[in-house]
């Protein structure tokens, strides 16, 4: 399982980052996810990748979210530094990405969750619906509202 988890780490880390918007918190969440997976294993008949994202999300909801560090309005300084590339275009991109992160924090949590699962994690609507135990139609509407709201925020 460790080898499989190693392969999954980058995708899991993106997912953790997309929820926390803080490198420190994302890595903390990732560590907690991996520790829990190693300690408790994967239920029979469940694919590790799918289970890992579920554990990560549940851990975020149950334990990490209450810290509220994600509500900071500043872009993580580590990430700003890491993302820096010379040139005017890069500066514009940084600003744009910062705007996206700020805008995402303004979305209702259920919309953020669905948006991350589809646009970051790459899950199908059916997979999201199964995972969150909601109808596919709800996934569709939350996603559309999230994207619509982001478009509105970024264009004002």
């Amino acid at each position, binding site marked *: 399982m460790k080898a499989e988890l190693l392969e999954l780490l980058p995708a899991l880390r993106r997912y953790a980052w997309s929820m926390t918007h803080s490198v420190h918190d994302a890595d903390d969440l990732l560590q907690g996810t991996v520790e829990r997976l190693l300690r408790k294993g994967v239920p029979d008949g469940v694919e590790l990748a799918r289970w890992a994202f579920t554990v990560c999300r549940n851990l975020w909801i149950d334990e990490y979210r209450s810290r509220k560090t994600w509500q900071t309005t500043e872009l993580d300084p580590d990430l700003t530094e890491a993302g820096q*590339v010379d040139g005017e275009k890069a500066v514009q991109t940084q600003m744009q*990405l910062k705007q996206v992160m700020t805008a*995402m924090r303004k979305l209702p949590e259920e919309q953020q969750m669905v948006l991350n699962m589809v*646009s970051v994690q790459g899950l199908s609507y059916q997979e999201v619906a199964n995972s969150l135990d909601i109808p596919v139609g709800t996934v569709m509407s939350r996603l559309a509202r999230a994207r619509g709201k982001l478009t509105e925020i970024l264009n004002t």
Partner: protein
Amino acid sequence: MNINDEMLSAYLDDELSDQDRALVRTALAADAKAADRLAQLASVNALVGRQATLVDQLPMPQSLLSLLREDKHVVADNVVELSGFRQARQRVMHVMRDHAALAASLALLIGFASGQLLPLLGNNPENSHTDSSPAIYAALDIVPSGQQLSIDDNTSVTARFSFLDTQSRLCRQFVVQDTQGSSENLACRDKDQWTLVATARSSAVANSAQYQPASGPRLLDNVLDAMMQGSALSQAEEQSAISNRWQSE
């Protein structure tokens, strides 16, 4: 027919039935507003995906890698000692077995290195970093892992970790960043000098159809798996190597 955000959003994700997809296509061809709205949603969606990948640019925490690469050093509650990670030898065999294309990847990677990293390191006289190569190697001599060293206004070297390869050479994984981008690299100490062993530029790799399934760093991981004798140097061991000017015992 009125095409709303739900339809356009699902169209973007290829989640519509054939019938609804055809309806959206027809609407997009006839309605400039719908086409503009789709472009807006697609743009936002691309940004959401892109901001998530920003975190890829930072190295994975060593403690986390240790947790997954180490078997013997995991203590009771799964907290791992932080004195550098040790690569399980069995993983090398696992990777060799599972990555049947490893040999081909290595060959391609080396070819890739010739075109991408060597200019960065100064082997190309037309390159603006002609003078950088000795400085990069000099940086490898002294910079501890986890630290970044600027070697001129535009170029920096960040050491990731050090290890012994299967030929008992001291080697280092490091990142070079300059105005053209960044590259992940491996160099090993041969006698009194560093020799570049492998390199990968993320952007160039991403543009190559042949490398689509794996990112540059991931390819470098495979190379590392094949090269490492089994352990990364601890902080103390690395400091000793730095003090000894990277001379193998």
